[in-house]
């Protein structure tokens, strides 16, 4: 075939220039990565410097300096400075919060993804549930706090429920949207190739809506970490949210900020993990790669 011959001659030409072009491209790519790193790290460093100067100039006693927070962070992680109830307890707090964040998050995914797919595909279900969902969705999660404490009592279950509520709607809505925006031609193509029923769900609906599902999961995962402080207001003794609340009660702002930073770091690291997983699963999708 002519294409192959043309491709062969183009190939030969390409190998000559390839080496040079590849090195140039790699060099440009490395420079780009370095710059992204420098800017990405430089900006928060700048913010910390500003914070330090602002505390020094105003001579406030309400906000600790970055150094004081760093000492608190060290004590929270390893102990040996203040030797109080919070010294060296970081891991237990992280572990408790992770359990609640992911308890609520996975529960939301477990219910939200299948339900979203069914609502997206089945008109009767959409007519039945869509108005109710639209009504419940704008209610702030914090407003559920009193009721959740009545339902689940004081303890981790109320926290898990609140995280679940916050994570549920983005997962559900993105999944519904993803399913509804599948190109109808794909269903026609699949059915003419002999695919139908449950196989259609597994082989077409699920993978085709996966990019939207992952967008929902990522937003929901962010909310789950945001809600951990609210969730742990429900009177649990441990967890990063309860550390922040305890810090407030004790007027220990260094502890509050330490808790905030740890929550931020946990959210950041786990978000990167989700991005890596989604990039791997969605490598076929040209719009999705970061």
């Amino acid at each position, binding site marked *: 075939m002519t294409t*192959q011959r043309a491709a062969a001659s183009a190939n030969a030409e390409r190998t000559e220039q390839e080496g040079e072009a590849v090195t140039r491209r790699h060099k440009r790519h490395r420079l780009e990565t370095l710059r992204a790193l420098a800017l990405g790290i430089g900006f928060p460093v700048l913010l910390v410097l500003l914070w330090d100067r602002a505390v020094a100039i105003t001579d406030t006693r309400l906000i600790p300096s970055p150094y004081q927070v760093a000492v608190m962070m060290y004590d929270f992680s390893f102990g040996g400075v203040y030797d109080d109830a919070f010294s060296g307890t970081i891991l237990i707090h992280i572990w408790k919060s992770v359990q609640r964040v992911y308890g609520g998050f996975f529960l939301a995914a477990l219910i939200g993804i299948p339900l979203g797919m069914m609502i997206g595909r089945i008109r009767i279900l959409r007519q039945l549930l869509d108005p109710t969902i639209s009504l419940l969705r704008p209610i702030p999660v914090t407003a559920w706090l009193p009721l959740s404490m009545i339902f689940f009592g004081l303890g981790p279950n109320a926290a898990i429920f609140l995280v679940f509520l916050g994570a549920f709607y983005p997962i559900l809505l993105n999944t519904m949207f993803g399913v509804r925006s599948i190109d109808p031609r794909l269903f*026609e193509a*699949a059915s*003419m*190739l002999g695919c139908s029923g449950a196989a259609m769900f597994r082989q077409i609906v699920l993978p*085709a809506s996966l990019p939207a599902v992952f967008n929902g999961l990522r937003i929901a995962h962010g909310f789950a970490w945001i809600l951990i402080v609210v969730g742990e207001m429900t009177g649990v003794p441990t967890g990063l949210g309860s550390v922040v609340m305890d810090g407030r009660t004790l007027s220990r702002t260094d502890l509050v900020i330490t808790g905030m930073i740890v929550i931020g770091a946990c959210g950041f690291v786990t978000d990167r993990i989700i991005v890596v997983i989604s990039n791997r699963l969605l490598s*076929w999708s*040209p719009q999705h790669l970061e």
Partner: protein
Amino acid sequence: MSNAPQPNILTIRGVTKRFAVGDDEVEALAPVDLSIPQGEFVCLIGASGCGKSTLLRIIAGFEEPTTGSASIYGKAITGPGSDRGMVFQDYALFPWMTVHENISFGLRQRRLSAEEIARTTDEFVKMVGLERFAERYPGQLSGGMKQRVAIARVLANNANILLMDEPFGALDALTREQLQRELLQIWARTGVTTIFVTHSVEEAVLLADRVLVMSAGPGRIDSDTRIDLARPRDVSSPEFNALRRDITRRLTSHLAPS
């Protein structure tokens, strides 16, 4: 082409189609009758809105006729089936599957052995010349390659009618010419009955055994012209040009002078 008459693979009797548009109904197809012998290459040509795509979609089983019947070897069409393979203008490949997985999709729906699926798939990957791209995703292919995958996908699944809805309409001229040549080679090799919708007279005369000119309001088949030129056809020959003129005239005769 053999001269022995082939049995009709497709028979369409009095098929009409009405669509509801708001409170109104639009008659997309007036009663259409059509028989296509096995192995024939038929082009449907006409202005937009003449019902050529609707007719194709009825044959595919994606739409039901309002009245009348369409049947394959006497068996009524009741829905999409693997005996009829549609090639869409916008490809409709599964973007999360590689070229290989797209082509094996139909085979994987039937409980065939892994070996058989792999062997058949490789054969069709090779037929459309995409061996080097078998592990690529559709998003990484050019339009021409995507359309090759779409053709291989339905042929690998044993389709004996190939339904093509302006398949090369979105391709550049060079790629289109090449795919036309390749399609004719595939058609000659497999003997697959092909119904090809186009709005290019030249494409129709180049490819088809038979050109059906359709006109709108409501959609109907106006004329049925045999193209008896030997293949490969020379688009600059006087015979070719005579046929092209003839079909262009049929195509425009029903249009009101503007």
